[in-house]
């Protein structure tokens, strides 16, 4: 379980890692330090320990300076922190909407018509099979 103090420390780190940039929300505005973090940790329980260690190491430090130190001195923990932060961010419905992409599933309809004329050139160029 992540306690409120850990969440507060993490929230400050998360907003440095992922600030807002229109139309994309910041990490905290997307809800990363709340339920999304729990959801991400549920998918990756192996990261719980390095995540907790990362947050503990950063507690009481300026967030940006803490991230400098963590990435330099504790890369495994920094990796866990950033994977969880970004992973939780992309779980956010708000973020998905802002990304505005037509996600799968999609029918695997062949598109040969779009390139069949080009293929004639490929065939004309030939190939020296040995």
């Amino acid at each position, binding site marked *: 379980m992540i306690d409120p103090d850990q969440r507060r420390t993490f929230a400050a780190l998360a907003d440095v890692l992922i600030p807002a940039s229109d139309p994309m929300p910041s990490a905290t505005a997307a809800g990363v330090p709340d339920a999304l973090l729990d959801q991400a940790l549920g998918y990756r329980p192996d990261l719980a320990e390095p995540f907790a260690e990362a947050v503990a190491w950063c507690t009481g430090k300026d967030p940006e300076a803490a991230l400098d130190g963590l990435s330099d001195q504790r890369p495994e923990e920094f990796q866990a922190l950033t994977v969880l932060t*970004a992973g939780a961010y992309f779980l956010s419905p708000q973020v998905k909407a802002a990304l505005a992409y037509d996600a799968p599933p999609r029918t695997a309809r062949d598109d040969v018509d779009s390139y069949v004329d080009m293929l004639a050139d*490929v065939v004309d160029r030939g190939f020296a099979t040995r």
Partner: protein
Amino acid sequence: MNTQHGHGDADVLIVGAGASGGVAALELAGRGFRVVCLEQGDWALPDDFTGGKPEWELTRLKQWNPSPNARGRESDYPVDTKESPIEPLMFNGVGGSTIMFSGHWVRAMPSDFRVRTLDGVADDWPFSYEDLRPFYDEVTHHIGASGLDGDPAYPDPHTFPLPPMPIGKYGLAAAKGMDKLGWHWWPAPNAIASRKFKNRPACLRYGACESGCPTGAKASTDFTHWRDAIAAGAVLVTGARVRQLTVDNRGLVTGAEYIDREGVVRHQAAGVTVMAANGIGTPRLLLNSASAQFPDGLANSSGLVGKRLMIHPYASVYGTYEDELETWLGPTGQALQSMEFYETDAGRGFVRGAKWNLMPTGGPLTHTLWEPGEDWREGFGPAFHNRLRSTFGRYTEWGITTEDLPEDHNEVILDPGATDSDGIPVPKIRYTISENTERMLKFNVDRAIEAHQAAGATSVHPIPVVRESGWHLLGTARMGTDPATSVVDEHGRAHDVPNLFIIDGSVFVTSTGVNPTATIMAVALRAMRHLADNRHHQTTAD
């Protein structure tokens, strides 16, 4: 510890339920053999995979990571890779590595079987492309590959039972670039169902092929072979980790000792044993089966078991494009392939060549991963959104599979100091990239940069050698005609042990420069059909 019996009498024991094991089981059970297969992993069903689900991008980095060392499942065994620049990738379960392969269904070229004759390096195979061609045809139509007939790179217009997968916007952009340069490209063949085929539905383009197909469209052998093999009478035992093969006083293999999930040591007896445990697993078990009769490991009088490991050093060249190209869409899978630089050209400073594949680049998390040593501000902070905007949907990969030549010092050995969770010595690989391959990588990376630029890329990001790329585990029990210089004959029969067969990628004489699964399955089919056709002359253990 008492050794318990296995699963009844078997004519044939198969070790490993992957690509070649599936071929063997279906061929032999269908021909009336009593077949038992021991597989250390389990079944995985499409719903077990996470593609298309919220957890996909996080779990593909761990639970569905193609590296057994990263995945660390109970069914996996560790591989010591400290002396290799490339991490071997595999999956242990029904379907083997076809569960996680990207499904590039590529035939080797005729020249691949004659490299000594043509280029004066390595060795020729004991058979030709023409000899293997009917088996390529049969397995391609059996598994339901998607592709387009008429690729001029091949001497024969081999056919596919299914139309090609869509090449998408990113494929079309890359094809236009290749055309500007006058270079070969072709809509790529994939072991993925573009339409419903037998027991598999059509692909839904989740792009999650390499973490297990959530649709069941990919031609993994759990679908293409195992269900039919079991219906034909094959017995498939999962959770059965083979420790060593056993021999009798005539020097014949009598089956295998294995450990079940309860930790019970069992023995499966069989008249014939077939190794299908991949280019690392097979030499591992043969070396671990040393005995007074076979002091250097089973079938190893040549000293070549575990030697000549080939792993296809792989380069990625990524291009960033201004236009939205939907590069999150599958298959992953390949959209295009190019054989432009496959054949030897002496002017390039190396022999042999490389196959290229154009691939998409997945979901958003992929583009935001931090690597140790990288300045975090390059991908996080304000740069996070800039990177995401420039890559997500706009980033494609020309992947380069290079043909590495066999060298004895590239090898699989047993690690004397480490064991898996069942106390079996783990394999260690020692691998170095040769100068020939280094030159091949550099040449092809430079050309792939040009290909992206011709296609309109705004920036290009090459990775000269991708560490996590060792899908192709080849050559560690090579075939040949001379027992002094090869482990098995052209039909996979061990020169030293007449009722032992090896049919996985271990038997490759050279690595070819293409993704090997089509060749592995064609070679396995050729070997097992020969065994079945000649069963009355086959020596068996009592």
